[in-house]
């Protein structure tokens, strides 16, 4: 890799960087080789942000597959409760119980474990680490014009703490008592009393340990992202010239830094309740007919601490996707992003509001209805910056010379998903309507579309768009488009019907519905959802194959800037080495969105202003 970086191919970018760039004397020292000298320091314990980004991405993909397969198993249970699941026994072992007639059924406690693990894995490992971890690492140094993160070493630790968290969680799947099964929110008392359910013992201990390491990973990463954005921007890169991706990652990191420590506090009190007999969350509990001596605790306290993280967490998931989509839409519609400043202010507004809406997850937990009013109002106000963003994305597309490739299709799909899921958020944000809708499939449909599928769409848009920067090759476009249409139609087919289930009062997290008179009529709909989920999963396999095939066999990148984009990452060599730019650091002369200005299709950020040209945005 390092050798290709110094190949003497002189391009216009090189000349511009050489003429106007900032000489930091980086390459006069041989420190770079010190940590990319052999296989282990290059690919495993790498301190290079580009490699760490790939590590986050591929680990995230591994977890996405595990999490998705789990959902297929519990969807089989929900869609086909009478079917014989004995064929799953080689994988799931004793969790498939086989009766005298040879019928295999999913053990109810394992159903709950699957639901819990699906949520935990997708929310934390895939959509936090896999999304923000990947693209913050890849793009922050490249797009602000830095050699690497502020602390490459802490950045490496960030990945390895995530890896450790993953190993612990993975091992917990194989416990004889099963992984934790009390829901991804880990509410006490199920999470606080080891005897409460089979997964509440060792499974919960490993769950909490894993997540504490995960938080360490997020914080180490976040500290780096914030410091890099604020301190290591290259010459000329003012905050108002940052691409929206960087704004999004920056605010995401701030949200993580302020909210994840609160989760740790909540977990710590939970650990004391579990192991040392305190009563922070436990009060007057009978279990198995036995009265426990815990007195004076408040389970609501845990919910406050959890959701103080939990709500910002959904923006930690969606903001990076929004940033990626803004960039991809602008580049591929060959137009400046509409309302750049409004986009930045909306990101900031969403970030701020995300801290004062957490109790909307607790409307039905016995929170004072008067206090609920405030949370309803702030929750609904989030619709304003969200709507500004949606309007600006559509306005960016409007009249654009749009290239419909896999990246831009997924970005457009993101906007569709965000609108569909966002609208149902307005229903759920009202505490009065929430009385009817809470804990139903309406909620499941809402959050899967707005932060699950939408975030995945943003991530796919990012992967298809920046794959050439990661591997110097393109992903296959035809397979990419097939992947897009299959995922778009499939995801709507899975989650759209759930709105109807929810409005009819079908509760979430139930093991089966056919035994309830009121919900038996929905068996066909449940079957449809299950089949749609399996088909959608199959389409994701196209992506996985395309991804790994393209790493080695994809079409080679022959020019540095295949999309004609303005941002700095496309001024690096096709295979950027350690330090990203072989010579000087590029100096930034303009904002990132000069598309179609003065009759030019695009003007890279490193190009100086022409005589009389004004920086208009």
């Amino acid at each position, binding site marked *: 890799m390092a050798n290709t970086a110094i190949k003497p191919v002189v391009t216009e970018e090189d000349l511009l960087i050489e003429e106007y760039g900032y000489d*930091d004397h980086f390459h006069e020292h041989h420190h770079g080789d010190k940590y990319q000298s052999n296989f282990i320091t290059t690919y495993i314990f790498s301190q290079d942000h580009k490699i760490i980004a790939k590590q986050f991405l591929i680990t995230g993909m591994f977890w996405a597959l595990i999490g998705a397969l789990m959902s297929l198993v519990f969807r089989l249970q929900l869609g086909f409760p009478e079917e014989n699941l004995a064929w799953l026994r080689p994988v799931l072992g004793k969790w498939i119980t086989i009766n005298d007639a040879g019928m295999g059924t999913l053990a109810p406690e394992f159903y709950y474990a699957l639901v819990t693990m699906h949520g935990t894995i997708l929310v934390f490992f895939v959509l936090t680490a896999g999304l923000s971890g990947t693209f913050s690492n890849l793009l922050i140094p490249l797009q602000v014009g830095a050699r690497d993160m502020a602390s490459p070493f802490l950045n490496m630790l960030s990945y390895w703490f995530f890896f450790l968290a993953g190993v612990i969680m993975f091992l917990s799947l194989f416990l004889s008592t099963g992984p934790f099964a009390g829901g991804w929110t880990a509410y006490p008392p199920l999470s606080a009393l080891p005897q409460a359910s089979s997964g509440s013992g060792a499974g919960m201990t490993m769950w909490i340990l894993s997540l504490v390491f995960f938080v360490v990973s997020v914080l180490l990463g976040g500290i780096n992202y914030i410091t890099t954005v604020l301190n290591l921007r290259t010459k000329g890169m003012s905050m108002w010239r940052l691409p929206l991706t960087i704004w999004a990652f920056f605010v995401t990191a701030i949200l993580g*830094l302020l909210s994840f*420590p609160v989760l740790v506090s*909540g977990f710590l009190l939970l650990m004391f309740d579990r192991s040392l007999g305190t009563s*922070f969350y436990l009060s007057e509990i009978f279990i198995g007919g036995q009265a426990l001596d815990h*007195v004076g605790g408040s389970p*609501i306290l845990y919910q406050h601490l959890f959701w103080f993280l939990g709500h910002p967490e959904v923006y930690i998931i969606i903001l990076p996707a929004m940033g990626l989509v803004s960039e991809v839409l602008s580049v591929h519609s060959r137009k400046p992003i509409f309302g750049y400043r409004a986009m930045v202010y909306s990101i900031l507004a969403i970030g701020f509001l995300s801290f004062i809406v957490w109790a909307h997850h607790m409307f039905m937990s016995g929170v004072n209805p008067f206090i609920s009013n405030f949370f309803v109002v702030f929750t609904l106000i989030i619709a304003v910056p969200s709507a500004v963003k949606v309007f600006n994305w559509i306005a960016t597309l409007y009249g654009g010379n749009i290239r419909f490739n896999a990246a831009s299709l997924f970005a457009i799909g993101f906007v569709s998903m965000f609108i569909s899921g966002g609208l149902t958020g307005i229903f759920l944000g009202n505490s009065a309507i929430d009385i009817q809708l809470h804990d139903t499939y309406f909620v499941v449909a809402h959050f899967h579309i707005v932060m699950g599928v939408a975030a995945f769409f943003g991530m796919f848009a990012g992967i298809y768009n920046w794959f050439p920067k990661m591997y110097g090759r393109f992903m296959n476009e035809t397979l990419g488009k097939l992947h897009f249409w299959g995922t778009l139609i499939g995801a709507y087919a899975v989650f759209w019907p759930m709105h109807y289930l929810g409005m009819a009062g079908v509760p979430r997290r139930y093991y089966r519905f056919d035994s309830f008179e009121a919900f038996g009529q929905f068996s066909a709909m449940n079957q449809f959802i299950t089949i749609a989920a399996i088909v959608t999963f199959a389409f994701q396999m196209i992506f996985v194959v395309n991804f790994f095939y393209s790493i080695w066999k994809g079409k080679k990148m022959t020019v540095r800037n295949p999309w004609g984009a303005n941002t700095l990452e496309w001024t690096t060599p096709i295979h950027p080495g350690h330090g990203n730019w072989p010579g000087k650091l590029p100096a930034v002369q303009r904002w990132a969105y000069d598309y179609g200005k003065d009759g030019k299709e695009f003007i890279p950020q490193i190009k100086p202003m022409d005589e009389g040209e004004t920086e208009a945005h």
Partner: protein
Amino acid sequence: MEAVVERAYGRNKIHPQKFALWVACGGILMMFAAFTSAIIVRQAAGNWLEFRLPDIFYYNTIVILLSSISLHSSYLAFRRGNTSLYRGMLALTFVLGAAFIALQYQGWQKLTAIGIELTTNPSGSFIYVISGVHAAHILGGLGALSLALLHAYLLPHKVTPARKLRFELTLTYWHFVDFLWLYLLFFFTMLY
């Protein structure tokens, strides 16, 4: 590596590592803010055992404040080139820091002696857990101080940018955990 960062990003007003430490302190502060809000929320819910915080926690506050002063004077002596004051004050800081931990432990024993055990009532449990987590952060600071002591006694006294930076990082963190204790004591005093 520090030297490289120094050169590469010399245009910055603040060194990236110092800035990163401030950001990290912000994260730690959020953790304790969560604890103190938890006390307020929990106290409002009733069944709250009232007791008076043992005096030892107040005496200990003086110890930790003195340690901040001694570390700061050690830092100033380091910059001025006053080797004996630099080394002596650094050692004193370490002793005061260790004394703080020992006295906190005494405080917990005092609490137990007046019948407030870890599991008696959440009001007492909070004191143990929160001051315990704070003590863990002091221990981290003692680790940094040990490294500083090694440097002070094993290396010749030279004011290089790298050593100045390292000292300033240690100093900032130590002042921070000191401030953190004042913050916690404020809540402990107001709410108990």
